[in-house]
């Protein structure tokens, strides 16, 4: 019994010592900045661009993390609770965070889905998954600018002092996005219409495909939870062979095994397919790199696709051109 009581005391000491540490890392830093928590890094990047120095942005999901499967830890809950405003993607992208977000919203804190301004007619609803809306809206830069609007408006509402600031940074960011969109369109148009097929590990590129006129085929469904069927795989293989498609793409958040099986299957039918490169679908690249920003991510995807499918890119690169 004595040992046990020592043990209990030990636990309490541990607990107390932790408490102090916690209080250091989570104390309020300054009152002027608005604390923004975003679920995915794409939303986080929007917030950073709009709030600028007026906001302090935390995004929960880092590089290579699959938002479909992300389970919030207590650390995330602490971050969510200490936020002034929370942005999430919505459309059931963050499948395992719904409970937490609903509870946060119930407290009266502003919890906003960045896709809320999109019209129903705009949203895609794939035939195979009835009743399920494709959440990968950020793949269409124009649509994503609508999300930027949601963020700017709600930030302005919660922080009226900085309204002007938010709206002006929204304008300049929108400008960049539109520029990127135009450039991407010209670059992707150089790909011959016959080979405009995008085969990826899961169905993340439907909006991208619609915007730039690509046919999109994903091995796994909208969510990465589902298991890929042999049936689907076989069909995609025949598609590759029939249309003579030379490149397929892996994604940063998903195991590349399915894609490899696909390549092998095509090879058995005497059709050479290569991995065209790695696309950023559900998460951005490493923070601090070019791919770690939204614009960089889209630019990376576009240039990878154009290169792999035999189109031509502007010599100085997409991103440099935007900043000109």
């Amino acid at each position: 019994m004595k040992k046990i009581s020592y043990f209990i005391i030990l636990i309490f000491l541990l607990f107390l010592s932790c408490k102090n540490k916690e209080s250091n890392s989570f104390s309020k830093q300054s009152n002027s900045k608005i604390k923004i928590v975003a679920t995915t890094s794409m939303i986080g990047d929007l917030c950073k661009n709009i709030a600028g120095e007026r906001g302090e942005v935390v995004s929960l999901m880092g590089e290579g993390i699959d938002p479909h499967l992300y389970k919030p830890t207590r650390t995330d809950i602490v971050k969510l609770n200490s936020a002034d405003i929370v942005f999430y993607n919505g459309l059931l992208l963050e499948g395992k965070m719904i409970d937490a977000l609903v509870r946060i919203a119930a407290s009266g804190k502003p919890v906003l889905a960045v896709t809320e301004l999109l019209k129903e007619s705009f949203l895609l609803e794939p035939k195979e998954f009835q009743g399920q809306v494709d959440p990968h809206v950020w793949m269409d830069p124009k649509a994503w600018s609508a999300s930027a609007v949601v963020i700017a408006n709600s930030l302005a509402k919660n922080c009226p002092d900085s309204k002007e600031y938010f709206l002006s940074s929204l304008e300049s960011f929108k400008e960049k996005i539109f520029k990127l969109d135009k450039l991407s369109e010209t670059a992707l148009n150089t790909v011959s219409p016959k080979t405009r097929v995008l085969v990826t590990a899961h169905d993340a590129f439907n909006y991208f495909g619609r915007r730039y006129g690509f046919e999109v085929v994903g091995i796994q469904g909208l969510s990465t939870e589902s298991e890929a069927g042999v049936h689907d795989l076989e069909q995609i293989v025949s598609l590759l062979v029939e249309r003579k498609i030379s490149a397929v793409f892996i994604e940063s958040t998903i195991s590349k095994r399915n894609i490899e099986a696909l390549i092998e299957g095509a090879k058995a039918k005497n059709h050479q397919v290569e991995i065209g490169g790695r696309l950023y679908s559900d998460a951005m690249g490493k923070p601090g790199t070019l791919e770690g920003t939204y614009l960089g991510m889209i630019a990376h995807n576009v240039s990878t696709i154009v290169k792999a499918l035999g189109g031509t890119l502007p010599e100085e690169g997409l991103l440099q051109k935007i900043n000109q």
Partner: protein
Amino acid sequence: MFDNYFYFLKKLISVLTFNAGYNAKVVVLGATVLGLTAGVVGTFLVLRKRALVSDALAHSTLPGVAVAFLLLSYFGFDAKNTFFLLSGAAVSALFGSFCVSFISSKTRLAEDAAIGAVLSVFFGFGVVLLSIIQGLNIGSEGGIHNFIYGHTASLRAIDVKMIFLLGLFSIIAAALFIKEFSLVCFDPDFAKTDGWPVSLIDYYLMALVVLVTVLGLQTVGLLLVISLLIIPATIGRFWSNSLSKMTVVSALAGALSCYIGASVSSILPNYPAGAVIVLTSGFFFIFSLLFSPVKGVFASMFRRVSLGFRILLDHTLRDFYEEWEFSKTSTAIADFSLSKNKLKISFFQKFSLYFFRYVKKEKDKIYLTEKGVLKAQEAVRNHRIWEEYIAKFGSVDISHVDFSADLAEHVLSPQIVKELEGAIESSTKEIKESLHTLEKN
């Protein structure tokens, strides 16, 4: 409507004959070999009454995969290298199996508690490690997630080669030690007292199970791999009592359910391979449970009914005989007759008495046929020998003998009758007087 079915059947046949696409061929082949191997190894596992140890093993692979992933990415290798991840799984499953046998042999806790504890603690640790990986920002955990639910569709030629080699290896490894296994499975106590290294043989078996489990992770995933080990083996048990036949049946059942399951899932969309394979084996299981001629429900029900039927017939014939004895007439039994309503039996019994030609009817009187006389004599004799045996050796009171004799006499084989004769020292074929007075109704 029919076109659909026709199309489906055509597709199914093309997959089953390996004429469909490359990927379907690879997947079906890999799954079939895996099912075969799991069937063989599973037989020993189930006979050793360790079926659920495989559940503990399968769950304890998770921390191994996670640790392998962490190590690989820490040292900057490709963190989705299947071979290393599976090696990690094997190591931690071996450790899990060691823990199960250590706890159940060295402490007072029974094996079920050991299995449950290892299963939940290891898997819990795996979940903790996964959440650490999620927080570390070192790339995707998607590869690991696939080990829990399996990813049959993405099997490649090299995976199938690995399954083939290791599967062949484990079948040979099991075949080499089949004598030891059968000893340990059927009579572990004897094996122990006879000086066999029982625990060593057990570890060997567990190592084989770990091998199969790890192979199965890629196809059906850790939650369903145990069904490949348990269900075919249980099916095997229904069809035979000999170890070698059981193993063959189980291997076939495993291979067949994987073959069919994987084929079906490669034709229809939204049919996840792992689940369909398990459900197919479940179909075979239910079929065997009901219809196996050896241990099936219907077979044993039939046997029970036919036994009851035989008992009824025996009783009727005995009644007839004792009626004759009681009447103390000087006529031979073949000439003894009863009036029709004296024999109080059901229509069904009467029908079968006629059917087997034990009795014949002449002018409202019922006579025993020659066959019937023999049968009646045998029934009475068995009854009385058994009665005497019980009275002599079983220390049962005379007044109770009749009742217990009634139950056993019908299952006496000629050999047992002989032994009983020896025991009560009566060697002639005569029929003794009943031990107790006959009561007539």
